[in-house]
């Protein structure tokens, strides 16, 4: 009975929402309210420059005119752009009479020349940077008030959204390197502007009278706004980086990395064991265990170096050795604790290394052979194409160089195989 009630309640709940006309209506009311609220506070209400300037006819003219990209039209545009009035408009700042011409007309025309996705993204970036330079110039002349900042921020929002859209399309078309280069350029540029604006805005705040200072709280700082944009860009960069990494990862590299994780885990585990050794364990065993652990760590570190120099095959072997050596230590300690028997530590350690080396060789050979028949995916153009191909001969050379220690008589049987097979 109760369950029915709550189930029905949730069903009703999903049916209760704003209708589309309702949502639109109240949205409009809210916008009007926000405008009116600004007026009450002696700020001039303004949504955007485009809607309140006397050049709105230019805006609609532009929309129509851009549809006809004939050669004649382009000539006309170029002539127009190089005329004196256009030049004046091009250098205008927010608040100037000709500024709307710059925003609605000139910049739109400039935008139409950007063809490739990357060019489009860079164009949006340029516009953002232009807005920021305008803001900086205004700030230096103390002409940057809240209303103008509002307008600038709106325009910034428009162009940074367009920028992100273009980057997303680049990502979808798998032009990941372009996406990341463009994004990181933008991030760097924004960081610089953010610092400049922060300094300028601080100066402005210090120079205004105390009452005005209270109004100028952190909410209206452009530098704060920029900082959030920068954070978003960094997130985009990181995501693209992940994608690039995933794409360039070959099977062999993946195996080496996986093995590294396993070895690292094992070494950490064993290190803990060694540090917790009880006092009744013979010092001989303890010393041998620590030495072996050191060896394991060295193998691991060398594996890491090989990984960095992209010798994935050798790295894999080294990580495997590291894991095995660590496991050997563990078993010694366990055996000595459980059995409390004096074990010939040296002989035991040697024999365990020998057994495992054979199995390493077999495992690795399988991986390589399965890769040789298929195509070893060369990564994208930035990596040297020869890297993966030269892995094969290198691996087999390395495998053949592994020395097989002499067979040694052991007094106690120790199981070593379960650690190797992952």
């Amino acid at each position, binding site marked *: *009975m*109760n369950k029915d*009630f*709550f189930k*029905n*309640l*949730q*069903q*009703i*709940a*999903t*049916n*209760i*929402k*704003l*209708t*589309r006309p*309702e*949502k639109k209506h*109240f*949205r409009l*009311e*809210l*916008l009007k*309210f*926000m*405008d009116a*609220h600004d007026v009450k*506070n002696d700020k001039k209400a303004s*949504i955007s420059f485009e809607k309140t300037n006397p050049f709105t006819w230019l805006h609609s003219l532009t929309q129509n005119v851009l549809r006809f990209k004939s050669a004649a039209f382009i000539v006309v545009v170029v002539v127009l752009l190089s005329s004196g009035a256009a030049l004046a408009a091009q250098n205008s700042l927010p608040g100037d009479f000709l500024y709307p011409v710059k925003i609605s007309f000139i910049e739109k025309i400039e935008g139409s020349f950007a063809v490739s996705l990357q060019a489009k993204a860079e164009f949006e970036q340029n516009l953002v940077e232009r807005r920021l330079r305008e803001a900086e110039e205004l700030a230096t002349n103390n002409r940057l008030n809240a209303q103008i900042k*509002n307008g600038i*921020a*709106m325009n910034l*929002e428009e162009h940074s959204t367009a920028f992100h859209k273009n980057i997303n399309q680049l990502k979808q078309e798998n032009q990941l390197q372009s996406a990341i280069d463009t994004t990181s350029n933008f991030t760097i540029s924004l960081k610089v502007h953010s610092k400049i604006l922060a300094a300028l805005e601080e100066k402005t705040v210090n120079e205004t009278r105390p009452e005005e200072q209270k109004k100028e*709280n*952190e*909410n*209206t*700082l452009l530098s*704060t*706004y920029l900082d*959030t944009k920068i954070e978003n860009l960094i997130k985009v960069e990181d995501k693209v980086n992940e994608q690039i990494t995933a794409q360039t990862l070959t099977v062999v590299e993946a195996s080496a990395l996986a093995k590294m994780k396993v070895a690292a885990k094992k070494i950490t585990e064993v290190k803990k064991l060694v540090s917790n050794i009880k006092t009744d364990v013979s010092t001989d065993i303890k010393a041998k265990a620590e030495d072996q652990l050191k060896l394991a760590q060295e193998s691991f570190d060398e594996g890491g170096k090989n990984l960095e120099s992209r010798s994935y095959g050798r790295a894999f072997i080294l990580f495997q050795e590291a894991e095995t050596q660590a496991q050997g230590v563990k078993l010694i300690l366990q055996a000595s604790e459980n059995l409390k028997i004096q074990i010939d530590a040296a002989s035991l350690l040697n024999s365990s290394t020998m057994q495992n080396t054979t199995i390493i060789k077999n495992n690795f050979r399988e991986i390589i052979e399965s890769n040789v028949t298929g195509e070893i995916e060369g990564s994208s153009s930035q990596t040297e194409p020869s890297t993966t191909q030269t892995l094969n001969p290198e691996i087999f050379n390395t495998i053949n160089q592994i020395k097989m220690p002499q067979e040694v008589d052991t007094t106690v049987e120790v199981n070593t195989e379960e650690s190797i097979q992952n």
Partner: protein
Amino acid sequence: MDQPDNSYIHKFEFIKIYDRYSDKIFRHLYFKLRDREKALDFMQETFMKTFVYMDKGPIGNIQAFLYKVANNLTIDEYKKKKAYSLEQMEEEKGFEPGIDTALEIKNKIDADKILEIIGQIPPPYQTVIIMRYVDELSIQEIAGILGDTENSISVKIHRGISHIRKLIHNYE
């Protein structure tokens, strides 16, 4: 959970907040007031008040703030309606889903009954029940909004549920 901790107050940004939360706030108010028109008005007022507050200083958790404002508005309303006369009971409009939502409930009568039951839960329990089962907020979130401990919220929810049980029993 991507909570925009937006301290850059901006008309442009605030409209996005409206786009994101208007349905939720409306739904919450609808269940509290059980009157679509009133819920719409209160929803609008919630956002307007929030905008005015935001002008004075940054707000941390916007969702929590919106629910707080909405809730406070309904408390005032409840105080006005304290004398729950028979007349007012007749005025209760029942289930009003709005023009373009498909009615999936088999029986409108069932929906009306459920709303009535919700309406009869005493206010402090009513609020947490709505927040938990309609707004689907976590206990932690509810505690944050109402300024209570998570424990007392759990207790209130349980008490609300037992009220519901009693009310259902009365309807049988």
